[in-house]
């Protein structure tokens, strides 16, 4: 078996004396789409921040592509992952400036990359529009384009479609799937929408109160979960 892309061992994240995340063992395989589901406050966003190296864990070790992550991770390591958040978080600039932002941080000339990626997200020719004056779905697609254009090895998605209409949800899901299939990008997505997890993910994990209580291939997670709480969640019956 291949070396896992991410390996978390005994990772604890403690805020103000309270453990918001306590993961004994988690391996994210190279090139998979892993969905993390769970109710609000289960530690899903915290997990993504750790995977993007935006925080360092209070305890435990994260190994990324064979490299143990030090407390002060080097920039080139951080830059191999990126996150798209629930809110698009665009800069108050043009679409082009937003999409090429990550490239300019890396001193990479955008060349044709901005036009290509805008084409992929269905916003061809929108370069000069003011990013914050677009519709919600368009803004989130600009945010997704901004992440894709830097060609990340790991794409982290934090409820990227939670506020969107079905058309934009479908569009974004297909872009994400296509990115995974054509580029082999490892994708970890956090959602509390079990149906989205079922549509997109190769494997699904359930976080409850900071603990990863189930992690199975998608079909298994929904058809024969080991943990009874996962069964409740998989049926869409858990209150959250």
């Amino acid at each position, binding site marked *: 078996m291949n070396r896992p892309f991410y390996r978390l061992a005994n990772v604890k994240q403690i805020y103000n004396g309270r453990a918001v995340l306590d993961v004994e063992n988690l391996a994210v395989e190279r090139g998979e789409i892993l969905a993390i589901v769970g109710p609000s406050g289960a530690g899903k966003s915290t997990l993504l921040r750790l995977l993007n190296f935006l925080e360092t864990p209070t305890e435990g070790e994260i190994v990324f592509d064979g490299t143990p992550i030090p407390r002060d991770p080097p920039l080139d390591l951080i830059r191999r992952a990126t996150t798209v958040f629930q*809110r698009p978080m665009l800069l*108050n600039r043009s679409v082009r400036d937003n999409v090429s932002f990550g490239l300019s941080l890396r001193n990479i000339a955008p060349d044709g990359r901005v036009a290509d990626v805008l084409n992929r997200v269905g916003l061809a020719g929108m370069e000069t529009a003011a990013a914050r004056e677009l519709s919600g779905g368009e803004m989130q697609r600009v945010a997704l384009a901004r992440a894709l254009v830097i060609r990340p090895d790991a794409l982290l998605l934090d409820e990227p479609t939670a506020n969107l209409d079905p058309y934009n949800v479908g569009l974004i899901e297909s872009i994400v799937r296509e990115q995974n299939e054509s580029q082999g990008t490892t994708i970890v997505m956090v959602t509390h929408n079990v149906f989205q997890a079922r549509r997109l993910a190769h494997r699904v994990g359930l976080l409850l109160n900071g603990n990863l209580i189930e992690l199975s291939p998608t079909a298994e997670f929904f058809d024969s979960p080991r943990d009874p709480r996962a069964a409740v969640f998989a049926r869409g019956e858990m209150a959250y």
Partner: protein
Amino acid sequence: MFGDLLPIILLSLYVSGAALIIAAIIGVPLGAGMALKPLPGQRLVDLIIYTGMGLPPVVVGLAVYLLLSRSGPIGFLNWLFTPSAMITAQVIIALPLVIGLTSSAVQAVDPALRLQVRALGATPAQVMRTVLWEAKAGVTAAIVAAFGGIISEVGAVMLVGGNIEGSTRVLTTAIVLETRQGNFGLALALGVVLLTFAFASNFVLLRLPGRRS
């Protein structure tokens, strides 16, 4: 008459302009830094800065005088009664304004945006640059407010500059002098020049892009 006024106007612009540039170079990163990464004891620092924003200029002048006096701790610089002393005093007056208002402007930028910028691979310096650019209307307001504060200030420059003709006489001290001599017309003309500067700097502020959002 204008021939006599020109050096005074230019010196006013030089002193306050230099003080503003120095205060901005020091104060904008400090203000942004404090907003992005609060220090331990930040509340005390905030208290000091807010007090500094209301610092009476003449008190600053007194302190700078005592510092720069030949019998003071940095008297060896030989700056007293020179434009350098006036710039020093004005930097001290402007700094709390620049730091405090920059900090407020940066704090007004959504913290989630900062996280997003980091997630896209920004170094701390790049985060600061990006956030400052997002807050540029507020940062410009900070700088314009500081400029208005120092160009119209009279107490400190009078004390540490000495209002020396052809050397440290600026618009405000010239107004005091002309009023003292009963030359109300000239004093008023100088006041109009001063008002014009204040008007021009505010005009720049209001015309700035990104002002509406």
